[in-house]
């Protein structure tokens, strides 16, 4: 069930009631309820893949338990690698089997050898890229002795399957989330109210911004051969806001839902479109994934510490893998490599950690330089997102070719353009609200907290009103396909 559905509202309300009124002060029952609720939640997506989550949980729980008492380093490594192989094996099979097979066949035919291969009709289990990485973080942290393994299988299952973040993140670290299952959770009004606010904002981003932008992004991308360069730019911008609204909206709902249940999940997006360079963008976009790759791939590979060549190599590996994580298509790989190309000069000239604080902190307006920097960074991300959205490399190249043609200087023109104008205004309003609230965890976190309550409620009613008027036909969350 989708987060923006009546089904989920009923599910969450029922779960909330059982969690706080029935399970109440009993931690064990609350954790068990989380497991049951999460498996039910996932089962409603596709019950056939419940076994995979269970398998992943059993394997990594067992590996964790064995690692606790295993002192022999070789055996410890074997245990770790068995977890990695099982988890990545499952992920690799479901996500990449057909991709590798097709490319294998094509590579052989390039050399004049025809080979036969049967691609499989494989359904990608929802959330597999997220929960496999989450469980891997557990075994790796246990291996590195950063974390003591848990003996409680119910708690571990709850950690793996926790429904707010099960299907599209944030990818939680065991060091952050697992201990919260052992701490008594008492209901906090402030936390719950904040959670509701974040859910509301997430719904606005998803239903109003993402789903409306999706309509025009799809229209333009699906008919890109008939569009002018200026129209294609509009399409790329719509897609950029679609993916941001969709993914960050989902994350907001996930984090808000977790807060309703007394849990704190890590922030996954931190106003990435206000980034002044690509390095800052990657500190603000899909934070849980980028930090995962940093900690579990980049640093073990040596990070920036083994000379320039290794620095460049490791950077490209990270972005390549990050792109590939998104899907079995060369477009995602190119998207990742593009970002590597944008990032590398900053890294080599040691300017990748120049902007650590939010832009124009404490100020109302950015400086002209900051504004230009944000606009340029936004432009680069929009450009790269063309590859992310395109059907294949050929599509992306023809899209970009038309963008950089004389038709770029014509007026955009596409079917439904007049109806897109209110949506453009909504996007501008959205950016404005994000700008005002950029120093918080999410845009409306602090807005109106000091206002007279009816006025504050009026703000929330206005957001609900916008959802009512402009909520578009439900599109699936983009990141569910990853």
């Amino acid at each position: 069930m989708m987060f923006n559905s009546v089904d989920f509202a009923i599910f969450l309300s029922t779960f909330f009631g059982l969690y706080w009124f029935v399970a109440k002060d009993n931690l064990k029952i609350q954790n068990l309820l989380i497991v049951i609720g999460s498996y039910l939640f996932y089962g409603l997506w596709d019950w056939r893949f419940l076994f995979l989550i269970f398998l992943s949980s059993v394997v990594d729980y067992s590996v964790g338990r064995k690692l606790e008492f295993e002192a022999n380093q070789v055996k410890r490594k074997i245990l770790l690698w068995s977890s990695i192989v099982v988890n990545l094996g499952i992920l690799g099979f479901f996500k990449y089997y057909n991709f590798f097979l097709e490319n294998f066949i094509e590579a052989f035919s390039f050399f004049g050898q025809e080979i036969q291969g049967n691609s499989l009709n494989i359904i990608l289990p929802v959330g597999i890229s997220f929960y496999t990485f989450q469980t891997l973080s557990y075994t790796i942290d246990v291996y590195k002795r950063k974390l003591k393994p848990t003996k409680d299988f119910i708690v571990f299952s709850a950690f793996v399957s926790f429904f707010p973040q099960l299907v599209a993140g944030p990818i939680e670290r065991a060091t952050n989330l697992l201990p919260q299952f052992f701490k008594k959770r008492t209901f906090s009004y402030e936390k719950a109210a904040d959670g509701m606010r974040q859910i509301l904002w997430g719904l606005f981003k998803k239903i109003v911004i993402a789903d409306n932008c999706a309509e025009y992004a799809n229209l333009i991308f699906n008919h890109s051969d008939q569009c002018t360069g200026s129209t294609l730019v509009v399409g790329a911008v719509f897609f950029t806001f679609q993916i941001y609204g969709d993914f960050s909206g989902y994350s907001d709902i996930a984090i808000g839902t977790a807060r309703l249940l007394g849990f704190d999940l890590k922030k996954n997006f931190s106003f990435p479109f206000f980034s002044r360079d690509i390095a800052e963008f990657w500190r603000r976009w899909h934070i849980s994934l980028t930090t995962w790759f940093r900690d579990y791939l980049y640093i073990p590979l040596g990070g920036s510490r083994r000379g320039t060549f290794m620095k460049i190599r490791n950077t490209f590996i990270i972005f390549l893998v990050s792109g590939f994580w998104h899907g079995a298509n060369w477009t995602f790989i190119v998207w990742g490599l593009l970002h590597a190309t944008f990032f590398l000069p900053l890294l080599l000239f040691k300017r990748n950690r120049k902007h650590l604080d939010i832009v124009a902190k404490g100020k109302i307006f950015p400086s002209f330089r900051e504004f230009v920097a944000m606009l340029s960074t936004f432009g680069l991300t929009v450009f790269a997102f063309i590859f992310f959205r395109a059907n294949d490399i050929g599509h992306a190249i023809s899209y970009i070719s038309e963008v950089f043609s004389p038709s770029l200087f014509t007026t955009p023109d596409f079917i439904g353009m007049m109806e897109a104008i209110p949506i453009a205004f909504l996007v501008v309003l959205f950016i404005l609200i994000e700008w005002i609230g950029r120093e918080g965890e999410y845009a409306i976190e602090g807005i109106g907290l000091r206002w007279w309550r009816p006025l504050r409620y009026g703000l929330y009613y206005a957001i609900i009103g916008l959802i009512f008027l402009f909520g578009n036909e439900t599109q699936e969350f983009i990141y569910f396909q990853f």
Partner: protein
Amino acid sequence: MNKFIKRLVYFALPLVIISYPLDLWISDCISESSCIGYCSDEFSVWDDIFDGKIDSDIAVYGSSRAWMHFDTPMMTDSLGHNSYNFGMNGNGFLTQYLRHKMYLKHNRKPKVIMLSVDYFTLEKRDHIINHFQFLPYMLWNKDMMEETSSYSDFEIFDFLIPLLRYIGDFQLFVDTYQITSSDLKSKRDRGFAGISKGWYEGIEETKEVYHFEIDEKLVQLLDKFLQECVEDDIEVVLVYAPIYYEGLKRIGNQEEIFNTFYDFSIKYNLEFLDYLDYEINCHKFLFVDFPHLNDRGAYFFTSALIEDFQRTKALKRLKRE
């Protein structure tokens, strides 16, 4: 926790209280607007149904080939019996049956039903065309919920929760306001609306032959409907209205479709008025496109229909009563 629940209730209460009256008001505005662009002028018919305004002896059912072809004002004048045209643009028998149910629920039953049948009637579909037409009437309407449940256009909550089905319909509200503010009124007179247009030239370019898959569930529903009419003592007359002769060649399974209705006419001893060989079928100037007559064509067809209807037992029964 108490504070949270209290605040949540205080926050949600105004929304809950206002949702039902707001839903009623929006539904009223939309249905009165005619919203021609969205639903081909179906609201005026639905309004007549739900307001119990239909006092007819003869009811015409069907798709656009009903509401464009059967001139019910002319039939009323000529036959001396009130007639009403319930034709639904682009809709097959499932939604025609729904309309029939709503009609009988809120109005006195007719004595005769003329069912306009064709390749559309029993065609397998996934979606309802013009599903906007149901919006104003859906709330807590159990019959509508049941009859549309096999389509993916609506969810159960759309029928139960006020305002939910209107989420995102900003453009609909704008159009409603614009239409309501203008002089635009429904063109349907007793449900009939002739089209004053000539032949659409673009049609002839397509030479494709189409196969219209018959949905077995709709066949069963038609059977059920005819059985109910027998029990309710309603005479049913099947009418296969004219199709431009070139169009007939484009229907790959025309014989199968025709025979399905013919078999029903035998089973229930129904009059079956077949106009597939009617003389006007080769006159392009009387058609808008292959399946649709224009207003002049509708005049000729309705004249022939009235004449043929006078020889049926259905009219004889009407005269007796």
